[in-house]
């Protein structure tokens, strides 16, 4: 006979500050789940909580208010300390900071914070975002920019379509075009090209 048991639950996804209501809800859920687990002789439940902390919040809190920023994070960690390792902060990677090195620094700061507060809480990354799926995303570098404006391509060989012949709203097409243009030296540099690409095909 197969017995399946769910032992992890998420209390909100990317729930922003203030954190005090989230902490209250987490503690109430944990209390109820523990009572239920005892009743059916099941292992205790673990919980994912939290929002996307930016590194500057761990070092020099950029948020203000009684429940925001480092103070709010510390409050949640302190109040959930009795749950030990059963509380896991869900950090979503990819948007800010940007690079692997910056994320490494972030987790160094996270480790230091937990040590300072003598907490057994750990982190999980339930979203490792990268905005791409090709070789660079696979290996470790950088993704292309998502175009913020329209990109115009002139095609003098096609008189009927001379002028802004088509508009690339599609990032996939834009990335393909960018690669081709830069490969064939049609654009000397792609640096700072988020403002637009003006080229001849």
């Amino acid at each position, binding site marked *: 006979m197969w017995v399946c048991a769910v032992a992890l639950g998420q209390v909100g996804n990317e729930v922003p500050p203030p954190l005090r209501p989230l902490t209250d809800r987490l503690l109430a859920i944990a209390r109820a789940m523990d009572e239920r687990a005892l009743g059916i002789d099941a292992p205790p439940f673990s919980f994912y909580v939290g929002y996307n902390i930016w590194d500057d919040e761990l070092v020099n809190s950029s948020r203000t208010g009684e429940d925001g920023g480092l103070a709010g994070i510390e409050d949640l960690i302190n109040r959930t300390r009795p749950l030990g390792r059963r509380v*896991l902060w869900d*950090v979503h*990677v*990819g948007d800010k900071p*940007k*690079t*692997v*090195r910056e*994320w*490494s620094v972030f*987790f*160094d700061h*996270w*480790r230091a914070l*937990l040590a300072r507060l003598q907490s057994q809480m*750990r*982190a*999980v*990354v*339930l*979203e*490792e*975002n*990268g*905005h*791409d*799926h*090709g*070789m*660079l*995303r*696979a*290996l*470790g*570098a*950088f*993704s*292309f*920019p*998502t175009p913020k404006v329209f990109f115009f391509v002139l095609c003098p060989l096609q008189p009927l379509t001379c002028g802004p012949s088509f508009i690339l*709203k*599609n*990032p*996939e097409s834009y*990335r*393909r075009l*960018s*690669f081709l243009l*830069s*490969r064939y030296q049609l654009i000397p*540099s*792609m*640096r*700072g*090209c*988020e403002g637009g690409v003006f080229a001849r095909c």
Partner: protein
Amino acid sequence: MLDADRLREGGRPNPGHATYSNMIHRHADVVTISGYTNALQAWQGSNKEHAFPQGQIFMLPNTTWGQPTFWVIQMIADSFRPRVLQLDPDWQTYGDGCKVDVVAVSSEDGASLVLRAANWDESAATLVRVVFHDSLKKQQPTAVSVLLLQGTSGDPLEENDPGMPHRVSPQNRTELFHAASQTLTLPALSYVVVTFEWAPRSEQAVEDWKYAVVALACVAAAVWGTYALAAAYTPPLLDNHQ
């Protein structure tokens, strides 16, 4: 050829999975789970998905196939080892001109060691010299296997499409590790997983292994730069079982 440094300035930088995974391994004491997003994505399904095209497995009504990120995930999963070995000095490639990141993991008894290396340099291969700890030198590996993931065109954006779903997929390339010189070649834009196996060890040897560490030094970051993997007596960094 595009250069990642130009993208760094003009583009939107994002973590690449192989290097990110290496970093997370080095933080396994405080990060217990890390999940790539997203798992599935329809091929050219909608504009919304195009704006966020980060799926690892793409699908059409009649087929599914893995993207390069999918294969990296598979190579990591297939080479799982519970111990993460400490790097000394701490491996910081970014900003130093290095475009290689390596993590070393081992079995509990040290009879199996895996190196996972990402080289995201778009034009230059890199040589890595592997220097085993003294206790390992006494006994040559009984088996070495090398799995390579590399694009076919040099396009840093290369992907797999329905017409060629296995264009970018792992290949056995044992010749990339040259046993006589103990050097490993990391081709441009590649991910390499090397597995070294030793014969089963005595209890004393296992105890010795617990104090072995793989140290990595970036000797030179130029084209065909050489990296050395050395070893010293230092406690292992992390237990991946946490």
